[in-house]
């Protein structure tokens, strides 16, 4: 700590604090219009001048605080010049600049600080106009004071470099891209510029309205699994704006175009506000019903199936978007009321190979290290993930680290945005991950980059792996993966040569027929280099696709595992839960999602209870899903909207979004964070938590734990890894990492420091051979279709399509390499018919060399382009996770 005095007040600040921040810590309220703690100082506005140790005026923002400094903000020379600088700024501003509410304008607050109501300087202002082309970022150029905060937010925090100051002298002003329409610039809509702008030159729609905000609620984002802390500003019972929490541990005052802006879906006119039932059979229309009626139908239907065929004839699909408490309640409902372990959640479709693979390698089903560890990493290996679009705040952080000097290796078939700043891009053919990781592992061995001591003391399976790796010389792997051996070698040298390497991976590793092998062979690299379970290493981070993918599984919404990954087959575990719940937990593991569909079509499963997930749009091989839904006697779903699945349901119960919920989410780094309701649910919509209680009660059962806090408390008593976690503690102390084994335990951000959680305490190297993917292109289906996510949209698109994000990306397209397009005679925007071995779907094409020749890419965010009709039923041999990443298709101009 550094001690100094500011205007005679002593203050203590950490190292690397600016004098400006110190002056503010001392309570001076010193303005600094080009200063933002999230970015580097610029020293350009000259409003923060102070004197130090009696010297001449200096900009306090660019001066590091030092021990014993005597700072005066009231030095006449410094304060006088600062005031003049501010008056100059005021003299170029239009009158409306000073009419902005003080809570939204630092300029107004700075004027208040100096007691300025006008300016002694008079002269021309600007007439540069506004740009409202972007749905979220609204530019009023005449309010721009050229402080450059927006430029630095965009570059230093977001890493996009979309903005710059342009022009010079008095005409200096911010521009995006070429300076034409903001919407057509490279802006990714993260809102960082808007959040930092001190004058309102960059503003967002909800805050342009000068009406005051009624209340602000802190919560956790309900989009991807990064877990950004957000502040929801509510006006007239609608979201006026959402801003990132400055200083939040995960997002550190940053957010993305989804979490920050895409909230209009909450008040979309097609939100479901009453239950819907279909009483006259499947062909009949859904009609509005009372809760009474709908609950009767659901309870009667479930009871009938349970009593006639047994609980195992019912399948429950829980949701990775629901809270922990809701997932806890859902699995308790399945196990205690329906009497079945047939409960699964949509992490089956994305990260079940992570749970299986990481458990096999390390003994625990979560990423091994906290996000903060990227700050220390000197090499980041990003594999099968496109974080700048799918997990933008992580993507931005990776860019920050790379710009600060960390090496970056990208393993991905697409030339994703991060490749632009990467040192190496291993552009491996889809489905060849295991070969690539085995090749890199072999190179680590050959290059002498294996940590022999670590392997000797803390690792099992080395000899077997070393033997297997004989078959993976780089030239062979290069042939298998379609990459240059030198590129693989460079990747191995960078990762192996780093002292604190980190691995960040996503669904490009898991969603394969050999997805679990992909996870394990990737984990091998961290194990071989001793960079996991050690204080130095940065381990393995898994990017989770949805807000609570981690938590849904943590809470035991899994057919074989109870909360905290306690095996349902373990009699002792079962007995403990049975005792607490007062009902015997079924002994036999239940069905996984895709198995539920097969069971339905073969007559073994008669009812499906789906919470939130739109299985008819997002699950692979749609025809199979539709057949399963058709075969069931009863289909119940909870949703915000009439989804594709709801269209097949007998009862649709109106649920609520994360902005209307109380509970917790677990982010991708196992951090448990609070979710607080900002809005009241619309109409008669209810939380999944309440709905489960109502259904259970109607079936004559009491699920206990009447509130989310009670549910978390009950889970904590039954689950050693969450024993120390409670709402009360989270509200008091902030987020906690699991494992957190007691109320006095801090939570373990970095896992396995003493021993791995495997049975023998050692990290298990996996000797797994490369096997070809389930689907392979051939002469009839020569292209490989890869599916994934785009920045503006999220999963099924049910939320993001009901927001102005649609202006950013209005319709789904198929990304095709220009060479392939030329061969097929396709121009940008042309329609192309995509045929897989199962179905045919037409897309407009988008020509881009981000895909390799022979590969095409799209998402399943738009129901009018039913991508999952094309995808196959191939699935991970270990976990049943679908092979979304490899589908053989043919293209024909449409």
């Amino acid at each position, binding site marked *: 700590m550094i001690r100094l005095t500011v205007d005679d007040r002593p203050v203590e600040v950490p190292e690397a604090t600016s004098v400006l921040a110190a002056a503010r810590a001392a309570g001076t309220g010193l303005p600094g219009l080009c200063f933002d703690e999230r970015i580097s100082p610029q020293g350009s506005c000259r409003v923060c001048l102070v004197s130090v140790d009696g010297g001449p005026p200096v900009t306090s923002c660019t001066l590091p605080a030092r021990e014993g400094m005597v700072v005066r903000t009231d030095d006449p020379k410094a304060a006088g010049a600062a005031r003049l600088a501010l008056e100059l700024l005021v003299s170029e501003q239009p009158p409306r600049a000073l009419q902005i509410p003080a809570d939204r304008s630092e300029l107004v607050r700075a004027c208040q600080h100096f007691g300025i109501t006008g300016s002694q300087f008079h002269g021309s202002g600007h007439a540069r106009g506004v740009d409202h082309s972007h749905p979220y970022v609204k530019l009023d150029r005449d309010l721009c004071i050229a402080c450059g905060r927006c430029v630095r937010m965009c570059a230093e925090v977001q890493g996009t470099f979309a903005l710059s100051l342009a022009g010079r002298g008095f005409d200096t002003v911010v*521009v995006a891209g070429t300076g034409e329409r903001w919407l057509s610039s490279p802006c990714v809509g993260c809102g960082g510029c808007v959040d930092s702008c001190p004058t309102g030159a960059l503003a967002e729609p909800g805050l342009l309205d000068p009406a005051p905000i009624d209340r602000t609620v802190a919560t956790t984002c309900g989009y991807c699994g990064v877990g950004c802390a957000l502040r929801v500003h509510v006006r007239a019972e609608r979201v006026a704006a959402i801003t990132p929490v400055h200083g939040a541990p995960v997002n550190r005052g940053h957010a993305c175009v989804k979490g920050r802006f895409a909230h209009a879906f909450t008040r979309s006119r097609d939100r479901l506000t009453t239950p819907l039932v279909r009483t006259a059979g499947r062909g009949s229309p859904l009609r509005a019903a009372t809760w009474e009626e709908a609950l009767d139908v659901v309870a009667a239907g479930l009871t009938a199936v349970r009593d006639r065929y047994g609980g195992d004839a019912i399948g429950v699909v829980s949701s990775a978007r629901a809270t922990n408490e809701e997932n806890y309640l859902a699995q308790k409902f399945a196990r205690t009321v329906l009497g079945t372990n047939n409960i699964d959640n949509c992490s089956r479709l994305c990260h079940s190979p992570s749970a299986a693979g990481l458990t096999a390698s390390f003994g625990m089903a979560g990423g091994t290290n906290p996000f903060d560890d990227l700050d220390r990493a000197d090499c980041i290996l990003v594999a099968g993930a496109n974080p700048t679009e799918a997990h933008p705040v992580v993507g931005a952080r990776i860019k920050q680290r790379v710009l600060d000097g960390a090496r970056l290796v990208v393993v991905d078939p697409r030339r994703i945005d991060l490749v632009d700043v990467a040192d190496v891009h291993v552009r491996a053919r889809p489905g060849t991950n295991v070969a690539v990781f085995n090749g890199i592992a072999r190179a680590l061995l050959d290059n002498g980059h294996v940590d022999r001591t670590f392997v000797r003391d803390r690792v099992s399976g080395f000899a077997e792996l070393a033997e297997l790796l004989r078959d993976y010389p780089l030239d062979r792997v290069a042939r298998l993966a379609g990459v240059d051996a030198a590129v693989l070698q460079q990747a191995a040298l960078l990762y192996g040569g780093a002292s604190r390497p980190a691995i960040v991976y996503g669904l490009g590793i898991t969603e394969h027929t050999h997805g679990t092998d992909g996870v394990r062979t990737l984990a091998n690299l961290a194990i071989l280099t001793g960079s996991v379970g050690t204080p130095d290493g940065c381990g393995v981070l898994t990017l989770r696709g949805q807000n609570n993918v981690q938590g849904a599984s943590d809470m035991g919404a899994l057919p074989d595992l109870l909360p905290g990954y306690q095996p349902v087959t373990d009699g002792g575990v079962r007995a403990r839960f049975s005792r607490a719940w007062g009902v015997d937990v079924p002994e036999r593991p239940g069905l996984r999602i895709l198995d539920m569909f097969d069971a339905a079509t073969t007559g073994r499963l008669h009812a499906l209870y789906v919470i939130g997930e739109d299985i008819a749009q997002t699950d692979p091989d749609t025809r199979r899903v539709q057949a399963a839904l058709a075969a069931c006697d009863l289909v119940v779903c909870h949703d915000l909207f009439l989804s594709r699945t709801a269209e097949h349901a007998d009862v649709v119960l109106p649920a609520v979004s994360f902005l209307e919920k109380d509970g917790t989410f677990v982010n991708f780094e196992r951090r448990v964070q609070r979710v607080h309701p900002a809005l009241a649910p619309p109409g008669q919509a209810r939380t999944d938590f309440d709905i489960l209680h109502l259904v259970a009660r109607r079936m004559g059962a009491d699920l206990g734990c009447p509130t989310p806090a009670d549910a978390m408390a009950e889970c904590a008593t039954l689950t050693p890894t969450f024993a120390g976690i409670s709402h009360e503690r989270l509200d008091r102390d902030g987020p906690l990492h699991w494992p957190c084994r007691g109320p006095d335990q801090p939570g373990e951000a970095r896992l396995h420091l003493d021993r791995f959680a495997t049975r023998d305490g050692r990290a298990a190297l996996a000797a797994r051979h490369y096997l070809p993917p389930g689907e392979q292109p051939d002469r009839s289906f020569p292209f490989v279709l890869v599916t994934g996510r785009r920045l503006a949209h999220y999963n099924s698109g049910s939320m993001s399509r009901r927001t102005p994000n649609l202006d950013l990306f209005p319709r789904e397209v198929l990304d095709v390499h220009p060479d392939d397009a030329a061969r097929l005679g396709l121009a940008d925007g042309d329609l192309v018919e995509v045929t897989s071995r199962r179905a045919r779907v037409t897309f407009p094409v988008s020509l881009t060399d981000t895909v390799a020749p022979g590969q095409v890419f799209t998402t399943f965010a738009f129901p009018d382009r039913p991508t999952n009709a094309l995808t196959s039923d191939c699935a991970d041999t270990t976990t049943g996770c679908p092979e979304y990443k490899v589908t053989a298709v043919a293209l024909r101009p449409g």
Partner: protein
Amino acid sequence: MVTEPREVFVGLQARVARPGTSLLERLREVQRERGEIGSADLTRLAEELGLPVAAVTATASFYADFAEGRRGRRHVRVCEGTSCFASTGGRHIRDLEQVLGVARGTCAADGSVSVQAVRCLGYCYDSPAVLDGDQAGTGPTLGGLLDKPPGSGTGSAASVRVPPPPIPYRSLADPPVVLAGLLGTEGEWQVWPAVVTGGAPERVHREVEASGLRGRGGAGFPTANKWAMAAAEPGPRYVVANGDEGDPGSYCDRLLMEQDPHRILEGLALAAFATGAHRGLVLVRSEYPAAVARMCTAVTEARAAGHLGRRIHGSGFDFDVAVVEGAGSYVAGEETALMHTVSGLRGDARPRPPYPTSSGFLGRPTVLHNVETLAAIPWVVRHGGAAYARLGHPDEPGTKLVCLSQLFRRPGVYEVEYGVPLRYLVEDLGGGLRDGHTLRSVQVGGPLGGFLTPDQLDLPLLTGPLAEAGVPLGHASLIAFDTAMPAAAILRHEWAFGAAESCGACTPCRVGTRRGLELAERIGGTQLNGASASGPGRPGRAAELLTRQEPLLEVLDTASLCAFGRGVACAVRNVTRVYSDELARSSP
């Protein structure tokens, strides 16, 4: 929290190893081919160079050469520098506009011709001046250009008929140092082969240290100290020659670059050798097309002669040089701004520290020298630092090139030893003013320098005593103003320069220079606009307006980010002091 200023685009360029050094040239090519730079060009160039498009946009909008929009097939640059202003009061610009039928800053509707006013073309010994394409014309008719009838000049062929006279130069130093090559007393590349093969960088450093050589660009920082600072930082390091001679009134750098470029390159090579740099850059301003061409040729010649390249003269030392042509910005000559310019970025200044010696080109340690400084180094190394130190004044050893403007009887570049009285320069060398002109003031050291009255000319050519008189020596040019020039016009000229060249990086300069210009225009009132304007002004109004200038000067002087804003305040204060009576009598 980050407490040190960062340059985001420099950081990106450094990390991905994609400096935009060729961007200015590429923008110029597009402009040459198409007359203007459109947004599609910005996008294409950004992709081509791997730079963010916003950075390219910023550059294209910052530099005057690109920012003025469409260019004609014939592009005429007319000088509005201080000497031209002192010689004609700006009449040559109005006359040219009439002959060409095109206003400054615009292009004829048919795209035939465009006119750009620039500061300055470096023909201050024969003001006023023009560049028609790359062909210069000077004197009252602008090389014959103004002989044509109005509206007749829109043809595509250059119409300058009489080339300008050569730059007069003379050395009064004994022996000549910087002009030694031009005077034939020193050859080219005489010391480099032995030095580079001798492998003793510390010897070069020692001699330069002993010489007491300081930077000749205006800041006067000891050369050897700069080298030591850069050499103490981890490599890679760079050396850069500043040929962005932005001070109107100064043309000695143009003389050196056009007529003795190898001396500059040899100096740069010696600086590189002494500091362990393997790459050098030379920034030459676009207003000096002949200097750009000559420097480029010199680099090719030096490479062919084995003075540059790999394993130079069989030594283990590699060093090569690239020439970057500027694009019209005064502030780009400021050291932090110059690092941006040679990277193809907008030439704005940033707070120091860090200094370029630790964070310069691509964020690496960089030694930046004015070309005049570099041109002295071969002599220092050849004859020893002690020999150099014997020249000049004990407080400030060595020689300085001084430029005298057109109103002097004998304008030209004079190499003199430090310490000579200004009166010696003005009266003995310059011969006083031309017939029919009476000296009213001398501007010393360019637009950020100071003004002296004739009775102050006994001050010596030394940084300290001049600074005490409120006059920064700068690059040491002397521009004579005669009694015919209205005070308010000079005041307006100073503010206009500040407003036009402010980079916009800090509030005082960005907004303050505009407010100052607006104030000066009101003070100028009838005088500037002619008698037909608003009629006789209110007595005492000018004095009141001058009072309102004070807080502007205060904030510029106290709160500006770089020396430019402070310099503008200093220059305006000088004008206001020297011309206080006349200004107060102005009738706004």
